[in-house]
């Protein structure tokens, strides 16, 4: 556990956003004082009301100022972040979705975390082709225009990297749910069923597997069993209504609902049908789960039932002091819908049902809320999701008992945030 030097510096980005959040909310009132976010003390008129504001007096920019709109400058802290020491190079690396800044269930396109293995491929859609070959009646080539002439579907799915929370196997490590849980996004895709494309080419009876391959410089490839390929896989070209972002596979990616993100091949250019899996690097060297006996599980595709409290959390402290308080977070399962989310404020000793609000869709994020009256005492916040099959999100200890410390992938254990009396939250594990 302690091969690396312990660090106890304060968490810098949280501090920074804490300050900024406080300043904007309280109009310059002292931030350190808990309760600074509320309206000013009775008797002192609030300058936010009594002073004439520029925006109340002068006209703002016109409709031609921002042909493609961007968020308010006050939201400039709401960005993906990476952790440089995780990988050798940012070209084959990862950044994280700022879950603690979001609400509802949809992740905005520009905030969806990125993981690529040779940087973002910049693909000209006019020169992009999708090929289907192998055990098919007729190998086919589609242009983007061809793809868009097939019947389309709109589906909301979460995508979670198999390594999400992977740094936490050995114990609490990164202080912020952006970093512990941010290899996750939830998007409405528009696309064509992979099944429709495969039927256009005609899968031979001997076809049991497909290989999905990307057009980027890593030539990303994964084997997928034909049952899944013919079930709910989607060949998507739109996300949240607009074209896929380059970093999400523009012009076309594969969606493999409920299964680990690495299989959702971006810049999809080829589907091969075969009778056996290919055993490529991303399903042998990587994305296999090492067990304590030195053996390894392979083809661990589904992402299990999981949830996390996004607020409060280390990057999102409570700044309003005691009183009515909202705990919120997200829950999801690669096996279907979320049936229930429980919240505990005492480290798992007693649980209450949280309220799920917003659409409840299969293999999509669910948003939950738990409202209570905080008395200002320290709390251990936890959430626990249960999916429609009755799978219950396990504790981290239960996972470790079954799988040891070195399996990297598929950590869906219950997260604990220690909420201190000053409103700060810290990533901990409790007995």
């Amino acid at each position, binding site marked *: 556990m302690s091969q690396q030097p312990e660090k106890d510096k304060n*968490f810098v980005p949280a501090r920074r956003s804490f300050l900024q959040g406080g300043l904007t909310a309280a109009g310059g009132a002292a931030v350190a004082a808990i309760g600074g976010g509320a309206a000013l003390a009775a008797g002192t008129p609030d300058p936010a009301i009594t002073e004439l504001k520029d925006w109340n007096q002068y006209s703002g920019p016109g409709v031609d100022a921002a042909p493609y709109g961007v968020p308010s400058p006050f939201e400039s802290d709401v960005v993906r972040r990476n952790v440089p020491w995780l*990988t050798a190079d940012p070209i084959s690396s990862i950044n994280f979705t700022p879950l603690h800044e979001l609400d509802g269930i949809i992740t905005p396109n520009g905030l969806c975390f990125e993981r690529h293995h040779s940087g973002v491929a910049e693909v000209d859609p006019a020169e992009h082709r999708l090929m289907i070959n192998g055990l098919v009646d*007729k190998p*086919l080539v589609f242009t983007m225009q061809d793809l868009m002439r097939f019947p389309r579907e709109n589906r909301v799915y979460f995508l979670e990297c198999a390594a999400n929370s*992977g740094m936490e196997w050995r114990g609490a490590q990164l202080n912020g749910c952006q970093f512990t849980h941010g290899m996750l996004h939830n998007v409405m895709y528009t696309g064509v069923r992979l099944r429709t494309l495969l039927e256009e080419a005609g899968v031979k009876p001997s076809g049991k597997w497909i290989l999905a391959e990307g057009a980027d410089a890593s*030539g990303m490839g994964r084997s997928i069993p034909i049952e899944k390929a013919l079930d709910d896989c989607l060949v998507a070209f739109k996300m949240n209504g607009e074209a896929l972002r380059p970093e999400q596979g523009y012009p076309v990616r594969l969606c493999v609902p409920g299964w680990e993100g690495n299989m959702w091949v971006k810049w999809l250019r080829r589907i091969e049908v075969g009778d056996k899996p290919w055993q490529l*690097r991303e399903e042998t060297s990587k994305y296999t789960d090492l067990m*304590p006996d030195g053996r390894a599980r392979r083809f661990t595709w589904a992402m299990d039932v999981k949830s996390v409290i996004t607020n409060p959390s280390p990057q999102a402290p409570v700044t309003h002091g005691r009183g009515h308080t909202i705990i919120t977070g997200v829950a999801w399962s690669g096996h279907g819908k979320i049936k229930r989310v*429980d919240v505990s404020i005492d480290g798992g000793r007693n649980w209450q049902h949280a309220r799920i609000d917003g659409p409840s869709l299969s293999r999509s994020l669910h948003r939950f809320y738990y409202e209570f009256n905080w008395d200002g005492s320290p709390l251990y916040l936890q959430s626990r999701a249960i999916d429609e099959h009755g799978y219950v999100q396990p504790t981290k200890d239960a996972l470790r008992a079954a799988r040891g410390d070195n399996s990297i992938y598929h950590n869906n254990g219950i997260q604990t945030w220690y909420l201190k009396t000053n409103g700060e939250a810290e990533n901990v594990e409790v007995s």
Partner: protein
Amino acid sequence: MSKFLKFTASIVLLGSAWATNANAQDADAGEKVFRKCAACHAVGEGAKNKVGPELNEIFGRVAGSHEDFKYSKAMIKAGEEGLVWDHDSLTEYLAKPRAFVKGTRMAFGGLKKDDEIANVIAYLATFSSSAEQAAAEPAPAPTGASGGDTAPVETAQAPAANAADAVIPEHGVYHLGREALPEEVAAWDIDVRPDGVGLPVGSGTVADGGVLYDDNCAVCHGVFGEGEGRWPVLSGGFGTLTADRPVKTIGSYWPFASTIFDYVHRAMPFGNARSLDADQTYAITAYLLYLNDIVTDEDFELSNETFSEISLPNEENFYPDDRLDEANFDTNVEPCMENCGDGPAEIVMRARILDVTPDGDDESGAGGID
């Protein structure tokens, strides 16, 4: 939809528009070309040395003279013999690095197109204060060959002048797409399976592979596959899979040798993928097997014929996902709601790293994302 019509309609014009563009050195276009360098070089504010030296103020720099960078002997010697980077020397170096500086450690095959070279140099010039002169020089006009892949090949999608004239293929349900030609399938279908399906005809020896590896791979993966810095380790780690910190390599972990061939052929060297031919890939694969003690004879020749002789030691230690058998997945247990656990909860572990400093370069982290 309309976007794609526009795309196809403008295709004919693209070729000529491009030619005019390329007459002027284009730093913006050069920024794109620089992506081919970015795996190894940084340039611009705050640029640091990576696999290669940072390239700020490269114009006028004596070759091999960046103080904090460990160059090859060859590059240092070239500098001592008077090589200074300017428009001409860069042009020659970037076209054929190893021909221009024999023995350079820069594992890069060179830029094939004149306009790419001109543009990347124009881009680098914007980070060199002494380069105004270079920026003023005319770029060589693109040769016929260099225009090669700028003229899009596809014409099948040109919108029919009359919708009724569109040819409808016979296959499938929706009659969309067209049959893939064998040459097209061959160009993309390069995957290789453990049973040898997909292996191209070819061969290479351990000894040949060693030379290729030293030139193309060792900068990142280390001379013995031990991994430079945080770049991936490719060898060793035997017997560590049950250890506290397992080292998963080709020799200690990978189940199949076919994966080495497939991956190196499709994705390596990093930043210059698909640049190795079949013989070179056989040779490098043979060498990686040698670095992992799987073959021991330097004369061993790996080929599509001998491939089936090779198996990796860890192959039988992989088994299909059996997570659902874990107690965690028992759906008959109602989760406890009240007075669970023994006594009040207590902290047993705190975040190891409180300061994730996304903008710093804190090297103290443990664990990884793989």
